[in-house]
């Protein structure tokens, strides 16, 4: 029965194809409900976009599960449809989510805005893609998102300006406080990390990240770290050069597990961060603040301050 009906459908498709179907015309994606349809490739940008858009914007995040590794995500037909129907697409770029560009170019839509974090903050492919771990870049993205909302929906510009002020002063208040506090109390403290994801945050917090950058990059990209780098890290832990070890619990290779265990054994406080929102229902700032608080506690323990 199923195959008969589908068969009939496919037959009609054949007819439509040979008749030179008019489906090629660029579809202008008009929102069904009146809200601005926005797609974010990952939920960290989606959460920010959603809070800025309030009731006037409908944000869909493609990668929204802590169980999904954004590095090797394969899009589904549903993702392609979501992106095809959006008036604005937010992607990270810097080689982090190349599938978004593929889906965009396969489905041209006139007037669609594509906001790429990497292009906005000026990081080239091959650079550190984890821009949402840089408070400065997060602020740049907030500005850009609101600007694009204004372009797509000029009549609600005042509303978006209000949303932005509220998000910056209330929503992000705790996140900003924690960053300022850690920077004030622990700047210059030497730390180690499993992955380049922590590098932008370490820089913002003025912590001294001792782990070799080549190791951070290798783990982030899923390639094998060198023996020399592993030896350096082992020494840093054995000599207690680092006061805190930060690891990405969503990308924990056997190497990372081994180092994390070694750090624990040497009494170095360990704290974890994640690639995407944990839990998936958390807001960007709740998730980041939770991690920052754990980091502050680990720093307090590690330095004795």
């Amino acid at each position, binding site marked *: 029965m199923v195959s008969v009906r589908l068969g009939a*459908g496919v037959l009609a*498709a*054949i007819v439509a194809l040979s008749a030179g179907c008019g489906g090629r015309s660029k579809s202008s994606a*008009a929102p069904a409900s009146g809200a601005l349809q926005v797609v974010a490739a990952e939920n960290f940008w989606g959460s920010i976009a959603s809070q800025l858009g309030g009731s006037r914007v409908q944000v869909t995040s493609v990668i929204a599960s802590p169980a999904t590794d954004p590095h090797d995500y394969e899009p*589904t*037909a*549903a993702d392609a449809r979501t992106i095809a129907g959006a008036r604005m697409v937010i992607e990270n770029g810097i*080689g982090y989510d190349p*599938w978004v560009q593929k889906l965009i170019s*396969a489905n041209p839509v006139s007037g669609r805005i594509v906001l790429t974090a990497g292009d906005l903050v000026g990081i080239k492919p091959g650079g550190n893609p984890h821009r949402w771990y840089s408070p400065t870049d997060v602020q740049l993205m907030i500005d850009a998102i609101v600007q694009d909302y204004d372009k797509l929906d000029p009549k609600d510009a005042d509303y978006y300006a209000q949303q932005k002020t509220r998000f910056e002063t209330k929503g992000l208040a705790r996140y900003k406080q924690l960053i300022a506090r850690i920077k004030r109390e622990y700047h210059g403290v030497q730390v180690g990390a499993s992955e380049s994801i922590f590098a932008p945050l370490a820089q913002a917090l003025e912590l001294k990240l001792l782990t070799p950058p080549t190791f951070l990059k290798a783990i982030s990209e899923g390639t094998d770290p060198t023996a020399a780098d592993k030896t350096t890290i082992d020494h840093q832990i054995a000599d207690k050069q680092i006061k805190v070890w930060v690891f990405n619990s969503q990308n924990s290779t056997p190497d990372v597990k081994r180092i994390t265990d070694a750090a624990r054994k040497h009494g170095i406080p360990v704290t974890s961060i994640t690639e995407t929102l944990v839990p998936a229902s958390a807001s960007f700032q709740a998730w980041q603040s939770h991690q920052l608080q754990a980091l502050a506690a680990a720093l307090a323990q590690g330095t004795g301050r």
Partner: protein
Amino acid sequence: MPEAAVFQGLSWNPLTDMHQLFAYPFMVNALEAGTIVAVMAGVTGWFMVLRRQTFAGHTLSVIAFPGAAAASLAGLPLAVGYFGFCGFGALALAGIAGSRRSLSAESAAIGSLQALALALGFLFVSLYHGILNGLDSLLFGTFLGITTEQVVVLLAVAGAAVVLVAIAARPLFFASVHPDVARAGGVPVAAMGFGFLLVLGLAVAETSQITGALLVFALLVTPAATAHQLTARPVLGIVLSVALALAVTWLGLALAYFSIYPVGFYVTSLSFGSYVVVRVGRALGRRRQLTARLALEAA
């Protein structure tokens, strides 16, 4: 057409579903690309099965994988890697076939080439610093992300290849079935074999872009093998092979569009299913013939 841009899921109404299937340009591109690839695979596959070059075809498909990986590494369009590597692969295979060794030595040489291709593919994947996104789709296919430009390239290559095969169809068939007689009749058998391998390389490069490198056979071999089961007549066989390839491609794309599972799975399963049905059908038919004949003899 805003109302068409809203996806509602499978409605079981053929007209509505058809409308949904064509609602997005990306899907129109996918159906067009699938159609082009199916026609080319159906035609070349039929000759490949006839010439017993299935193993060579498989090797070309494995060569497509390092091609795609190398293109990703160099930042080139994937099509460049597919066509480039499959072209060189076809030349290498033609060299192996042209050296006129025994069949077993030939297949051993082709097998070694295949292992080298896989190893190279893995090397390129490891060399690709940054994340080689979509490794799964390189191997097992995807229909998402096909641009209009890609469709044009597919059409140009497939058009040229199918025209070449059509022009050479008669001598190629002759050279494939009775090489010695054909040679005596003045058909350049070696040149035919060489030319066909090049066309086969192009066909594999095209098919890989939809089914992925490992599932090329779903379109290149299975429909052609099914057609050979059904009829020995060349023209009818080629038409059947193309029709089957088209049917499994369209059905596979439609199923993948309405579900969350990959297109490669559907196309491969449908094409395998049709082959099994035909084999079983033929076996049953033969048994019925046999019992009828036995009954006749008894009477």
